């Protein structure tokens, strides 16, 4: 009896010790020590071929599902595409004219264009989409010139930024991760906001002015503030409004991504970083007294 009681206490002590160890680990992990970062990079690098191999059946299954779905919707899709093609041709002609005008005007204004160079285009090895972190591993690393903090894009828009680099693989923090914040602006009204991930599938617009009235379907682009992301990259489009919060659907779906490009951040030097932002205001026929007008209303 006494032996059983002492064993029970011993077990309790051991279990408490294990929980304490976990809590210490979380604390140490939050400190973001270089040793942990290096170990994580090494493990990602070492295990990425296995992970890629294990992911193959899931990828194949997904392709089969996609094929079956597209076969079933072939006729409907064809009609839709024909209509879309017709519409796009009209837009293309209009855009061609506008583009040449913009180029001409930019030349006249001596406008400096920030062109971020694509330094690497690689294959997505795996995506970890748990409820705690949303990251992906790309098959390019230090050897390919990838550095921490570089923006990652796909053909549809912004994917995220590099958070850790190993010798031959890198980890990308997706925009939907809870720790991701992208300085953006509304393309139609020009109001700035921060698109923050929620570890779900949508982004939430934060720090948006109360005067801004975003509409469903409005496209969000990166503003380039802070110098991490280049300006003018598609982030997503507003798809829902609830309780005064605006939710953005990221344009590139991380699960459908097979290839991504990593941009250099050479052109975003510290002295070029913007510090302010002037959104495109509606032309009001009154004197702008920088904030005082609001009190008068």
């Amino acid at each position, binding site marked *: 009896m006494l032996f059983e009681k002492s064993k029970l206490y011993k077990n309790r002590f*051991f*279990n408490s010790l*294990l*929980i304490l*160890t*976990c*809590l*210490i*680990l*979380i*604390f*140490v*992990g*939050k400190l973001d020590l270089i040793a*942990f970062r290096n*170990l*994580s990079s090494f*493990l*990602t690098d070492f*295990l990425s071929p*296995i*992970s890629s191999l*294990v*992911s*193959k*059946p*899931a*990828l194949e*299954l*997904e392709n089969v*599902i*996609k094929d079956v779905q597209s076969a079933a919707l072939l006729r409907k899709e064809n009609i839709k595409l024909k209509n879309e093609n017709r519409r796009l041709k009209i837009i293309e002609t209009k855009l061609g004219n506008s583009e040449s005008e913009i180029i001409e005007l930019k030349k006249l204004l001596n406008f400096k264009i920030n062109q971020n160079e694509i330094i690497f285009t690689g294959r997505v090895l*795996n*995506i*970890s*989409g*748990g*409820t*705690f*972190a949303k*990251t992906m591993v790309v098959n390019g690393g230090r050897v390919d010139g990838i550095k921490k903090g570089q923006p990652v894009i796909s053909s549809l828009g912004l994917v995220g930024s590099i*958070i*850790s680099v190993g010798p031959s693989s890198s*980890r990308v*923090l997706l925009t939907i991760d*809870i*720790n991701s914040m992208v300085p953006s602006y509304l393309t139609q009204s020009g109001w700035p906001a921060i698109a923050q991930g*929620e*570890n*779900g*599938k*949508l982004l939430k617009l934060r720090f948006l002015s109360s005067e801004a009235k975003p509409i469903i379907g409005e496209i969000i682009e990166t503003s380039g503030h802070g110098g991490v992301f280049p300006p003018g990259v598609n982030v997503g489009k507003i798809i829902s409004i609830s309780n005064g919060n605006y939710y953005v659907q990221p344009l590139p*779906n991380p*699960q*459908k991504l097979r290839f991504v490009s990593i941009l250099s951040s050479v052109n975003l030097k510290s002295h070029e970083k913007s510090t302010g932002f002037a959104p495109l205001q509606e032309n009001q026929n009154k004197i702008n007294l920088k904030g005082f007008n609001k009190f008068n209303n």
Partner: protein
Amino acid sequence: MEKLNSEIFFNNLIFSLITLIACFVQISLNFLSFFVISQPYILAIVLFLSLRRLNHEPSGILIILFGLLYDMITGGLIGIHSLFLILLKLFTLNFNFSLKILKKYGEWFLFSLSYIISLLIVKFMFLIINFKLPDIYAVSFNIGTTLLLFPIILFLIDLPKVFLNVFVSK
């Protein structure tokens, strides 16, 4: 004593291998569009079944190490999965002793209870650390898919036994 030690070692080895495979399978599931919001916790199911089916429970230190490995592979917050798996183990073992539940749905009920409680505790910890509220829909989707997947895995494990029973009885 020596036999017991080798048995414990063998059990832990089996657990390690299965957990390692489960880690990668769980990550690979994210490529399926069905799990667009979040993937189910196969790791939790494997741990629960190892605790229930193996003769000797997997070592706590080993569980912490696997949690740590998973966090490092997925790039998540270090230690959060270790805490989650340890809590799951403790709840599974403790509820097991205190609850006298139906045998047929007992395992599912026990898993659901331990899984939800440990996940909620860890999510609360995550909330304190990050000062941000995670997407509730993603968490509930994760809980739902895991709880739905549990009986399917259980059925798949028991399938060979059912087949053998049929053949032996014939």
